[in-house]
């Protein structure tokens, strides 16, 4: 019987989270940085659902549902902020938006 160990799901979630962190730190385009945040949220959702399977309870899935809703709200507001940045500065490079830098 070839059943998948649950720890594989958790390791996959860790790998995706690390990739999200890498994209967040290394990329210079505001939109790509924002997509990396979505990748991290997705990987956390995966471990929520995996633990929900392990405990045979639905609570974990409810939490991942809430994470999805908050991510959707965050995407709407964040993309509006990106639009405003582009309108005011004409650039999407994250290191050119540095007016709060000392």
């Amino acid at each position, binding site marked *: 019987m070839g059943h998948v160990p649950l720890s594989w799901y958790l390791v996959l979630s860790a790998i995706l989270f690390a990739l999200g962190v890498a994209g967040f730190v290394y990329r210079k385009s505001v939109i790509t940085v924002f997509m990396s945040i979505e990748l991290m949220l997705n990987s956390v959702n995966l471990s929520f659902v995996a633990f*929900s399977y392990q405990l045979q309870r639905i609570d974990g899935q409810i939490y991942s549902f809430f994470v999805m809703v908050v991510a959707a709200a965050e995407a709407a507001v964040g993309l509006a902020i990106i639009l405003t940045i582009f309108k005011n500065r004409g650039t999407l490079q994250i290191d050119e938006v540095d007016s709060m830098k000392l």
Partner: protein
Amino acid sequence: MIDTVLFIICAIVAVVCGFNLVLQKHPISSALSLIGVMSSLAVLYLLLGAEFIAMTQMIVYGGAVMVLFVFVIMLLNAGSEKASSKSWFAQIAGVPLLLAFVGILAFLIRGVLPPLGTVAFGSWVGGTAEHVGQLLFTTYLLPFEIISVLILIAILGAVVLARKEID
């Protein structure tokens, strides 16, 4: 057997698309890779018995959020990002630190957590819309209402931020 094959295929697709998201220079390539990650994660949710979450993942993430991303990329005509100087610390220590992070997490998952079971497709289907809805509208009713207010505030915020100044 078949669920092992399905898991491995989806995991490989997710990891390759994740690498592609980080490595591509053009935002639209990153967005398409992110859609690949989200679709394969939806299949993994189905394997874990979370039918409702899998469907929500496809509709909310793969549909609504990614359409919003692609729409903004097209609207702003975002081109490839320019290379700029990175700090020496990020260049030297970035990748080793990330590998150490994944290694420590994998060690914690395999070694420190109490032994986890295996996943057999179809052995537990607790995530149907009926079950999720029942819990969502009884135990989690207050968070549900609060989050609907949050959505309303987010809509207002997006409209206020992105509107054109009309004098």
